């Protein structure tokens, strides 16, 4: 026994050192690398600093905070081994619905002429409720019919966009109250994003909800045998994702001070990208909100950086595609190395 301990002592110390480095450390280094890259190019081509500019740094996060709110929900879905393609469309739908209850009476052609100048919590509640219902439908379809999450949420993606357009026959919803617009003003979207991230970071790490979410993603059969009501839990996870989509819709329409049926198009892909760049595994069972937050910020830094360097939007998209794929390749390589070592 004594010899066994002796031989194991050295590698164990090494392991603990490795473990102290959280998995997000890698992705954080990538974020720093990208930021420094733009900093360097900034001095060379534009003649000014990229990072030392508080206004820009605010914008970096501000412009991705809606994506970030979605990504927090999508990350949880992906951890269960599922996927949510509907989040972008649900943003559009909930933006329309929330905005329609936030109109002022100054406006002659309000969606609900008799329901104007309502207190701000009513449009917010309407948006959240619409998102929650969409999520409940996603979850129930997956839990009770057994269809793959890809299909269930693909259906919702198409249908929710349809509802967004049908709701006002394609007309934008404008003239929103000041109290509603305030939700999207200043850095409130960033604060909402980080609060949501904090809440679900805690939920995933320290609650039974979180442990069950990881367990289902790691091995759904074993989860079922261990007494987890898998169907009910999945409904919860998709409902939360839907609720967060609704919140994102509220924030986005408040920030734009209008609701438009085309809002949030392809946001679901950005949200998935943020999760995956942040280390969430599409195979399920692996992922953290902290990683997703960093992944979201990477997307923001890239968009700002390219704009800062006055590079065409076309190139931005090409590079974004490359970064997403590269992030997953690096992550898989890292995981394989860790397993074999």
């Amino acid at each position: 026994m004594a010899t066994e301990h002796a031989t194991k002592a050295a590698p164990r110390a090494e392991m603990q050192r490795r473990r102290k480095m959280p998995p997000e450390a890698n992705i954080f280094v990538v974020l720093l690398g990208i930021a420094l890259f733009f900093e360097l190019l900034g001095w060379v081509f534009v003649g000014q600093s990229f990072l030392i500019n508080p206004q820009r740094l605010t914008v970096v996060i501000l412009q991705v905070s809606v994506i970030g709110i979605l990504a927090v929900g999508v990350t949880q879905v992906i951890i269960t081994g599922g996927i949510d393609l509907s989040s972008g469309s649900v943003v559009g739908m909930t933006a329309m619905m929330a905005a329609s209850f936030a109109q002022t009476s100054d406006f002659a052609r309000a969606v609900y002429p008799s329901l104007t100048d309502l207190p701000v919590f009513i449009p917010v509640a309407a948006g959240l409720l619409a998102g929650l219902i969409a999520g409940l439908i996603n979850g129930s379809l997956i839990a009770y019919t057994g269809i793959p999450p890809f299909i269930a949420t693909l259906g919702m993606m198409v249908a929710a966009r349809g509802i967004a357009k049908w709701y006002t026959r394609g007309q934008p919803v404008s003239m929103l109250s000041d109290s509603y617009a305030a939700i999207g003003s200043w850095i409130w979207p960033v604060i909402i994003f980080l609060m949501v991230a904090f809440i679900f970071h805690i939920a995933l790490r320290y609650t039974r909800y979180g442990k069950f979410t990881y367990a289902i993603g790691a091995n759904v059969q074993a989860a079922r045998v261990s007494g987890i009501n898998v169907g009910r839990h999945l409904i919860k996870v998709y409902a939360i994702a839907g609720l967060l989509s609704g919140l994102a819709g509220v924030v986005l329409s408040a920030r734009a001070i209008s609701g438009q049926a085309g809002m949030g198009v392809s946001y679901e892909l950005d949200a998935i990208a943020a999760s995956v760049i942040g280390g969430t595994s599409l195979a399920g069972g692996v992922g953290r909100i902290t990683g997703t937050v960093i992944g979201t910020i990477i997307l923001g830094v890239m968009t700002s950086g390219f704009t800062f360097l006055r590079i065409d939007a076309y190139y931005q998209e090409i590079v974004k595609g490359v970064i997403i794929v590269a992030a997953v390749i690096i992550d898989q390589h890292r995981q394989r190395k860790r397993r074999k070592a």
Partner: protein
Amino acid sequence: MNRDALTERVPGLPCIQRGRGMSSSSSTNGAAAANSDFLLQVEGVRKEFPGVVALDDVAFRLKPGTVHALMGENGAGKSTLMKIIAGIYRPDSGSFHLRGKDIQLASPLDALENGIAMIHQELNLMPFMTVAENIWIRREPKTAIGFVDHVELHRKTADLFGKLNINIDPEIEVRDLSVANRQMVEIAKAVSYESDVLIMDEPTSALTEREVSHLFEIIRGLKKQGKGIVYITHKMNELFEIADEVSVFRDGRYIGTHAAKDVTRDDIIRMMVGREITQMFPKEEVPIGDVRLSVRNLSLKGVFQDVSFDVRAGEILGVAGLVGSGRSNVAETIFGVTPATSGEIFISEQKIVMDRPATAMNHGMAFLTEDRKETGCFLILDVLENMQIAILNQGFTKAGFVAEAEVTRNCDQMKDALRVKTPDMHERVENLSGGNQQKVLIGRWLLTHPKILILDEPTRGIDVGAKAEIHKLITRLAGDGVAVMMISSEMPEILGMSDRIMVMHEGRVTGFLDRTEATQVKIMELAAH
């Protein structure tokens, strides 16, 4: 040494291209320690994984025309060594000689091309492809224009099966085969490579007795052709029946090699555990109490019918039967995994509708499933996460938050009590050996303090030492008044542990035997019916 014997081909079977003679040192005396009497010779092999030295200065020498058994507890390093030989892992150091030549294997494919084939413990067949397609994958016969020649494919498979006396339709999809038949297909596939070295990692764990003797016939045929067979097993009787030589490993070290006829079962056990195991089955007579679990006319349409039995507190009910007799399905239904189509389940005389596992758990039931990897472990999660999962529904949370300190303390104590070998609680379970994974799962259920414990193959693929520990544990639990239902394919386990034995055959209960009257013959009579 007769080299022709090694390269002899079964007529009618195609040869695969192999890398013979490609090695630079083609002289037989070229390498220092190499001895061409051996088909395969590895010396001084070392392999480290994070936190564990899996192999340390290990030697292994395989003679042509022999069956060489590898024995050792789980975690002793057998599987690691075999994975090195099959090209899956690369050793950190050590020499590797194949037919006297010094080589280094780059990949499993490289090993195959050098004439080394492995039958894995985990089945590696593709479920949606036919048997024939699975066997000849990557080597499909082609028609003139490059399509797969299905006629030839079928013929070759039928040919192969004819030689091996296997009776499986080559055109059936693998997902429609029983586990035992899949294993036979795996074996046929390995044989089809005509490798000189065939590694079998517990090939009989899913086979019934009849299929085991069939496998042994195949092995004897391969021996005659001069092939070397490496045979990993935990079953002593198999070893004495089929092996010529036996090498024993312990804690990643090579202990020794002996001719199988020169050693006894006790010798081997002593070498494996480094200590004497006095009693294999520590069965104790304990007072039998009231009926805890009662099952009446339980049926699951198309799977099993009219199953009725009782298990009392302190009683161990053994459930015997061949693979496919429906034993595991009965257990799954009682635990609510697949609810019954008819029949009744009573717990302490109270009728319960078992609609889901949570219901069973709320009534004090625990269920260790047969398949560790599929329905037991969360492989990518750590030891703590694996152990705690079942108790999180039982009051270890406050307002949804897990009482981390309390849970960790409980799991830690359980880990120590069961002597789980792991660097710490945060090691991924996939990095543990099979026996330690099983202990983690047993720990998961014992933490729920079950009153009724259903065990499905509790010691499958587990070494002698861990097996004895688990048997002792089961006996102690029965002594504490737990009602135990234990499904097992191992006769000695069933006979040694059970108070009563229920035998099943093709979805029906064919009889009950009392401890005093049960014999292997009587059980087999009922099981084969």
